[in-house]
């Protein structure tokens, strides 16, 4: 168990390195932070001094090494745009994104899995057909369009739900939560649906096809031959076996949710990391962008580790003679 975790972490290190290199390289020459920081009036001398101070006159790899050294200590410097520590900015935004992503994932799983199970079991019922059509429309609608339509309907037309922001948040130490106020919950509904809908349809389709696959297996036939009840077969035997691949994909989807949050947060002006990222791209705020990408990579690596551990918990086959996984 322990060595398994260690080996997984060792495998993740090169990934992290590559991501940090890319994320740094990607933005090192995009735009010119100096121009933005100087504003409307400045002299040539001021400009050069700023370039020097930011270390932008250093060779690329020197800049990268400095960046990496600091990053390991969680030190990403000051945001060019906001003149505040990047770590702090991200820490402020992270709860918003995580609450949104988790709610969206929760919606996607809580609705997507049962719908997938249902459509997998009752392939030809009209409800299944409806779900399938619904899911196809779901994967065919771009996220940003869904968001816009929801705002139009529920905010502008009906006036039920807010169109932007997080509402009132409660502070729990450094974490700010929108779960504890009515306005926070109301503000969460539309973005979470927008973000979750696409994942919901993916998960539903995935569960459905896995379910159908599992229902064809010998052990399900054998379970029927043993006269077990449908309930035991469908929800005990079939569902549990369906869960194994679903866990992997759902884990990957959570990563996808965090990435797609960029779009949702832009549409709903949700004050999370994705919005911070997009705003930073516009301002060529290199430290923030680099830190965001590294954080996302870290999140993905962590999710992968958790997925592996879950796998480990669900599938006894992995517990002995690990190595050849799935």
């Amino acid at each position, binding site marked *: 168990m322990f060595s398994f975790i260690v080996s997984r972490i060792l495998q993740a290190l090169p990934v992290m390195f590559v991501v940090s290199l890319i994320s740094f390289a990607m933005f090192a020459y995009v735009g010119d932070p100096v121009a933005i920081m100087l504003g*409307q009036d400045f002299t040539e001398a001021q400009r050069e001094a700023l370039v020097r*101070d930011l270390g932008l006159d250093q060779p690329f790899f020197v800049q990268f090494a400095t960046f990496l050294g600091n990053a390991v200590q969680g030190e990403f410097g000051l945001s060019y745009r*906001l*003149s505040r520590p990047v770590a702090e900015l991200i820490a402020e935004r992270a709860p918003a994104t995580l609450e949104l992503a988790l709610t969206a994932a929760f919606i996607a799983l809580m609705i997507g899995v049962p719908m997938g199970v249902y459509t997998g079991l009752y392939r030809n019922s009209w409800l299944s057909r409806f779900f399938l059509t619904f899911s196809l429309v779901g994967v065919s609608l771009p996220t940003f369009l869904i968001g816009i339509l929801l705002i139009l309907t529920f*905010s502008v037309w009906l006036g039920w739900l807010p169109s*932007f922001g997080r509402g009132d948040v409660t502070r729990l130490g450094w974490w700010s939560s929108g779960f504890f106020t009515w306005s926070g919950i109301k503000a969460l509904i539309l973005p979470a649906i927008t973000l979750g809908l696409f994942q919901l349809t993916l998960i539903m389709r995935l569960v459905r096809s896995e379910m159908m696959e599992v229902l064809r297996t010998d052990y399900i036939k054998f379970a029927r031959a043993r006269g077990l009840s449908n309930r035991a077969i469908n929800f005990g035997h079939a569902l549990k076996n369906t869960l194994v691949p679903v866990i992997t994909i759902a884990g990957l989807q959570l990563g996808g949710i965090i990435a797609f949050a960029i779009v949702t947060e832009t549409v709903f002006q949700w004050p999370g990391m994705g919005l911070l990222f997009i705003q930073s791209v516009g301002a060529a705020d290199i430290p923030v962008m680099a830190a965001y990408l590294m954080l996302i990579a870290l999140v993905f690596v962590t999710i992968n580790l958790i997925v592996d551990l879950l796998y480990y918990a669900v599938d006894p086959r992995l517990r002995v003679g690990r190595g050849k996984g799935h």
Partner: protein
Amino acid sequence: MKALWRAAMLVAALMVGVAEARTVRWAASGDPNTMDPHSQNVGTVTMVLQQIYDALISRNPQLGLEPGLATAWRQEEPTRWRFTLRPNVRFHEGEAFTSDDVVFSITRALQPTSNFGIFVDTIDRAVAVDPLTVDIITKAPDPILPNKLASVFMMSRSWSERNNAARPQNTRQREEMFTVRNTNGTGAFRLQSREPDVRTVLARNPDWWGWQVPANNGNVTEIIFRPIASDATRVAALLSNEIDFVIDPPLQDLARLRNAQGLRVLEGPEVRTIFLAMDVARDELLYSDVRGRNPLRDIRVRRALYHAIDIQAIHRTIMRNQSVVTGTLFPEQVQGYSREEDVRLPYDQARARALLTEAGYPNGFEITLDCSNNRYINDEQICQAIVAMWARVGIRARLNAMPLGPFFAKIQRDDTSLYMLGWGVPTLDALYSFQSLLATRNGAQGDGIWNYGRYSNPQMDALIQRMKTETGEARNATIREALRLYREDVPHIPLHHQMIPWAVRGNITIPHMANNQPYFRWAVVN
């Protein structure tokens, strides 16, 4: 029953409480990126700090000068101005405001890390004469010093030094500067809380000196500012009653907002002029198919480009009448404006073609037009329309539209042949525009720093130098002369002055300001 009654009373009391809190929920596309008053000379910063900090000199709704923290000022000698300070003024944290704070603030604005150099560039030093008198010594006579000082906010020396903020914030420091997030002004509102990019809350400062002045009739107790970058979302928030006041509603939504129940659109001009500037310095353009010569150095070509633009069509469709078509460098609010010089070359495609043929380009030429796409009102659309209009006279322009970051970076490297720029005039004086945009770039602070077409005309330079020192009618004549030269020499193709409609909920009145700065001291919630 009794309990029920008590509950009802409580609810009633709460409702009264709610009614008494006169809150304005205010949104704009951008968020101030600092709370330091001398760090960023940017409208989005100033529009919030304006409420918190005062300058020595204040402005009235017509942008005229009014006493602010200084009750009187006088040019004692050509290079010495004396300011008499307002007594009994206190900062939000209790410090008394004195001449020492003025000396400190001006010194601070003069620091290299300050972004407010242009407002204090002529100042040599400030001297405290007594606690309520300050002398400001300029390096050369500066007739418009009071205009400039209306943009320099006053800070407390003891507070700043105590918090290690004696200089404007500097990104070279690893640590965050105290003033990035904290304020201590003398103004009508104080900063109550701030989450960058999310929400900034200002609360009324009941002790503000200005509430004694009858003109300051505002009754707002709380301002909640929230940045909403997306145009559609901002309008949606306004329509769904989540926001009361939007300072930059998109033009295309004005009709809808005008018709919306309970909303009003306040219309008015901004002191900002949109124009096209051209590379008239290089012998060969960087981005053109013309080799061996620079067509833009030929005034006939510049005039042809000018003639080809149907500014009325842009005004009517893209700007939806929210622009003031112009033929000059700045709008009428600016000191030195001359209506006789505000004349455009007429829209005339035939004339444009003829001029091009005359200049030796009967088949036109290729050129790249650099544009921002998120800086000015409908900037990218304006450029697109101009590119299409030029196409009709044979100029094959390629549009290169960029976000403001890369855009400014590019033109500031002189890496452009043709670009669109918008220029605001915070001092409301002609010199600010001429000096930055049209003076030969010579390294002196302010001269030609935004002149990326590197227009250089000794005649113009001489006029600009005279503007710096002359006063009165002589100066106005100089400016008029410069404007005439501007019109004849076509260093720019002027387009229009922006109009800046504000959208506000019907129960709120607030004067529309041409500098695009709301002053909540004058805002009334009914």
